[in-house]
């Protein structure tokens, strides 16, 4: 569906609902988070009614392609391969990979030190792809369904190194004091997170880009960042 | 299905049946008149059970014709539901007692007997119970009416099977060694029952290994071997002076006892 149809109806937006602080279900059962607020702000600017729903991450692309919703505001990294299948708007934030080890680990300070270690990442995330491509047989990759599982595996010693998007880990550390630490291994790729829309809906993409620029300009964007990510974090 | 009394009750014309390569019935011809008892004897494996099962269409014959009271039983021309209706109707007029009894293990003796009249003839439960008890009485099992088949002795099972088949008041009864597990006293009684039924014009085909019984009870006797009818005659003739050497050999023991 493109913009004209959406304007007559409701703008359907999805996220996974399991990726705090971007989207998650709070203990009152409400869907909240950075992505949710962004979606609402954008819809307001576009002057459309919005409905935000969850769809599990492993089915989210199928759902978008199948037309179950119009846009995926779900912290999705806009990689080249993905652009073949869906259209992306301008990035609305950029996230970076981060490397984590247990507190007592002291022999990891560069990617070369991964050699012979067990490295964890989350299925479907960019870190997973990065770790898989970089490994070249030097280390063993293990893949998890979500951050909580992976954190568990790291603390119990099932893996030695964890590759993950940084923000969610920071948030997790705020919630719970875990015996892990971040290590700097030098240059890691950063991925721009963008809104995915179905191919063949240029008007919607345009409207989203315009709205994005507007919320950036009027400070709404920074407010949302302050709420969910942290005061004054520069998120571009 | 009512025909003139001249029509034979059961008629077989050139009946053939094969199991794979094994030809078990090699062209059987047979005529049984209304109210007659015919006994079929023959060595083990000669095709006696197969013959009875074919008359009931439990085995589908490969060639030939089987007629019940002038109506053809095997109807290769009928398909599907049409054949289904046809054969169910035919079978309600035929009672069969199996060599292995095949009682329904999940029902009491009485229910085994009354199921068919209740469900097929729509007989009321009360009436069916009376009929069932009467039949069980007749075979000496009134006290086992509520017992389940698993607690019956061999002879008791066999008698329930007989009562079950009789409950539909069929025109024809097919007994496959229906007296093999009966003791002499009961054989006598069952013999009486059969004669009574014959007087009521029930026709009976009896496969048996008991020559004495066959001779006593039947109007006609037939000796089968290797899928063919070797000889058929009145029991007196067949059992005392069989014409065929094969029959003589088979009956040697029996003939010896006679002499």
């Amino acid at each position, binding site marked *: 569906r493109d913009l004209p149809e959406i304007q007559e109806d409701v703008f359907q937006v*999805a996220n996974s*609902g*399991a*990726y*705090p602080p971007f989207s*998650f*279900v*709070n*203990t009152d*059962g409400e869907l909240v988070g950075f992505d949710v607020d962004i979606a609402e702000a954008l819809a307001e600017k576009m002057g459309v009614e919005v409905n935000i*729903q*969850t*769809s*599990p991450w*492993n*089915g989210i692309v*199928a*759902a978008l*392609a*199948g*037309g*179950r919703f119009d846009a995926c505001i779900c912290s999705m990294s806009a990689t080249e391969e993905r652009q073949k299948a869906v259209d992306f708007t301008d990035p609305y934030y950029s996230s970076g990979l981060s490397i984590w080890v247990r507190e007592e680990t002291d022999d990891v300070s560069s990617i070369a030190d991964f050699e012979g270690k067990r490295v964890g990442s989350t299925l479907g995330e960019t870190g997973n792809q990065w770790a898989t491509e970089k490994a070249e047989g030097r280390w063993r990759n293990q893949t998890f369904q*979500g*951050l*909580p*599982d992976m*954190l568990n595996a790291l603390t119990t010693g099932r893996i030695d190194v964890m590759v993950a998007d940084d923000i969610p880990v920071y948030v*997790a550390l705020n*919630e*719970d004091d875990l015996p892990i630490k971040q290590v700097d291994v030098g240059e890691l790729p950063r991925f721009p997170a963008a809104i995915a829309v179905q191919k063949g809906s240029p008007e919607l993409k345009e409207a989203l880009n315009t709205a994005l620029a507007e919320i950036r300009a009027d400070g709404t964007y920074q407010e949302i960042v302050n709420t969910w990510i942290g005061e004054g974090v520069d998120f571009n | 299905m009512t025909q003139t009394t001249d029509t034979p009750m059961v008629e077989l014309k050139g009946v053939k049946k094969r199991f794979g390569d094994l030809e078990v019935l090699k062209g059987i011809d047979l005529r049984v008149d209304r109210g007659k008892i015919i006994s079929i004897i023959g060595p083990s494996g000669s095709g006696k059970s197969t013959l009875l*099962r074919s008359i009931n269409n*439990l085995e589908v014959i490969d060639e030939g014709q089987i007629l019940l009271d002038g109506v053809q039983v095997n109807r290769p021309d009928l*398909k*599907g539901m049409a054949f*289904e*209706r046809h054969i*169910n109707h035919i*079978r*309600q*007029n*035929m*009672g*069969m007692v*199996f060599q*292995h009894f*095949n*009682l*329904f*293990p*999940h*029902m009491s003796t009485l229910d085994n007997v009354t*199921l*068919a009249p209740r*469900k*097929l003839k729509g007989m009321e439960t009360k009436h069916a119970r009376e009929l069932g008890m009467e039949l069980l009485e007749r075979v000496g099992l009134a006290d086992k009416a509520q017992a*389940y088949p*698993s*607690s019956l002795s061999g002879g008791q099972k066999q008698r329930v099977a007989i009562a079950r*088949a009789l409950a*539909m008041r069929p025109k024809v009864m097919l007994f496959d060694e229906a007296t093999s597990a009966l003791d002499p006293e009961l054989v006598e009684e069952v013999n009486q029952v059969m004669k009574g039924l014959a007087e009521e014009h029930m026709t009976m085909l009896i496969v048996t290994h008991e020559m004495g019984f066959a001779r006593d009870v039947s109007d006609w006797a037939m000796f089968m071997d290797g899928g063919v009818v070797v000889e058929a005659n009145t029991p007196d003739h067949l059992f005392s002076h069989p014409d065929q050497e094969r029959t003589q050999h088979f009956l040697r023991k029996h003939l010896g006892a006679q002499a």
Partner: protein
Amino acid sequence: MIDITPLLVKAAWVTVDISARALFFGFFIAAALVVMRTARLPPLRWLARAYISVVRGTPYFVQLLLVFYGGPAIGLRLDPFTCGVVVGAFNIGAYMSEAMRGAIESVESGQNEASRSLGFGRLATLRYIILPQAAGLMIRSIGVLAIILVKNSSLVSIISVVELTYQAQRLIGSTYKPLEIFTLSALMYIVIIYAVMGMVEFLYRRATRYTFR
């Protein structure tokens, strides 16, 4: 913990609801398939066989995705819950028909013959003679399938039905308390499935009473 319990209970009810409905409709689909498999018209038999083969042969979640997302293309637009029930019923129906066939075939052939020779038709024979004796095995088999259905109902989350497992995962995502939430949801599964097992046991005992006489 207390505050999220109602959320989980609500999701557990969705699991029960969707499974019970799928089982109910699946039963009739299975019965129809069993009848078709013994039908005298060969095309009906082939159709049933092909159906069972394809449905058992492909993953449930793919069936869900195809119907849910592919459905609109052929004008079949189902809401997630309905879609879960419909696909679940057609899926479990294929398995259940095999279970029924197996139970029916486990009854000795002499029983069929004895009943047919009394003049009972195929259906009456099935009704009065075969099914009562096949019931025990059938109930146990369907019981196992029902349990599997309840457990696999978590797959319907892929078409965004919020049932017990998905809700638990979402809550873990926000609370970072995997152990507690998983334990809680496990307890709920235990309650649901224990109830199913109890029902199966009750029906099984009833159905096989005669073997203990």
